[in-house]
């Protein structure tokens, strides 16, 4: 019974784990950023889920409704989404520069080149 009551959170956890796994395990820098986005989005869902009230409606006041969702997590997540896109944009800008400087967006190739550079110094 208890498990069913929290099914939303279980989905969040699955999403979170897959995003997190992509970030750590993938060598492609763009894929890492995609993983990061998935990871962040799962947290958004966590917040939005907790604001939901059964039989409630969107928090736009109207005479016809009595029960509303909690508006506070919505506000927090609006902010978090913006932070997310800002991070993604910055990360992609870095990827572009890395591609130009190293000629690759693969983690192992970049590290190899760094080691060579250190050896020659």
């Amino acid at each position, binding site marked *: 019974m208890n498990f069913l009551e929290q099914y939303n959170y279980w989905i969040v956890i699955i999403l979170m784990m897959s995003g997190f796994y992509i970030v750590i395990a993938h060598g492609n820098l*763009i894929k890492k950023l995609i993983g990061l986005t998935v990871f962040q989005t799962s947290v958004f869902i966590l917040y939005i889920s907790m604001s939901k009230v059964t039989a409630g409606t969107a928090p736009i006041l109207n005479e016809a409704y009595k029960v*509303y969702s909690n508006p506070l997590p919505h506000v927090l997540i609006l902010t978090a989404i913006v932070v997310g896109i800002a991070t993604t944009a910055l990360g992609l800008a870095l990827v572009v520069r890395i591609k130009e400087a190293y000629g690759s967006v693969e983690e192992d190739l970049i590290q190899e080149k760094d080691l060579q550079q250190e050896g020659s110094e």
Partner: protein
Amino acid sequence: MLMGVYSLLTASFFVLMDAVDVAFTEAAVGAGISTILMVTVLSMAGRFENRQLHHPRIALFVVLITGVMLVYGTFDMPAFGDLNAPVQTHVAPYYLQQSAQDIDIPNVVTSVLASYRGFDTFGEVVVVFTAVIGVLAMLEFSRKPDTTGDEPAPMYQHKILRIVGKILIPPIMLFALYVQFHGEYGPGGGFQAGVIFAAAIILHAMLFGVESTRKAVSMPVVKVLAAVGVLIYGSVGVVAMLNGGRFLEYNALAENPITGQHVGIIIIELGVGITVATAMMLIFLTFARRVGKANGESA
């Protein structure tokens, strides 16, 4: 591409959860801007991926621990949708009950966003501004001299697209303005409006080429506008302070507190809109130009 679909799915999930404002933003940002940026960069970096995974075992281990921790955390959580959860009984009822008296606009999300927690939103605008500074600092100047090759615009050959696009751009901009000023009543507000407005410009750039868009909108002016948006928001706070209130205390802006709240919210939403629209434009145009050039060279 899957990214975009994923975002749209998330957005529709948010609608189900009654978070219309959030859904609106996620749809505009995740499915729109974010996907466009990803595709732009992918076009440069190539689709090739080294199949090799890095320390997959360690990664799996870390992820599993995280997952187990979270599952452990869910055991004592209040049930999903529970009306008596602490989240619903503390603080939140205040917003829902008092917002009508304190601020008098129907969209409670807007009143929390713009007034009760207005400082967070100010921080959010600053985050966007910071991202613009970062992207510009990294991508604005290339070391190589400008290669003035007149490469054709990406979709120049599609006549139908161009005409349809031309027709579409003005309504999109109008819609952005509607969203901007209607945020107090329905879902929407400065942030969403800014993104939509920027989307119109981005569409223009995709259809007619980045260079022609850069001719149409002057980059230095756009840059100044991005800064001005932040300043508008901040100055509302400072004016409130000069009028004897606290920072961002809109009540101090006019004789009647409610009017003060309305004035404050409209002005800060404008600041948000300006910064976000210009920021998204700057980010996209800077990316597109840099990446376009790199592609031109490799071709």
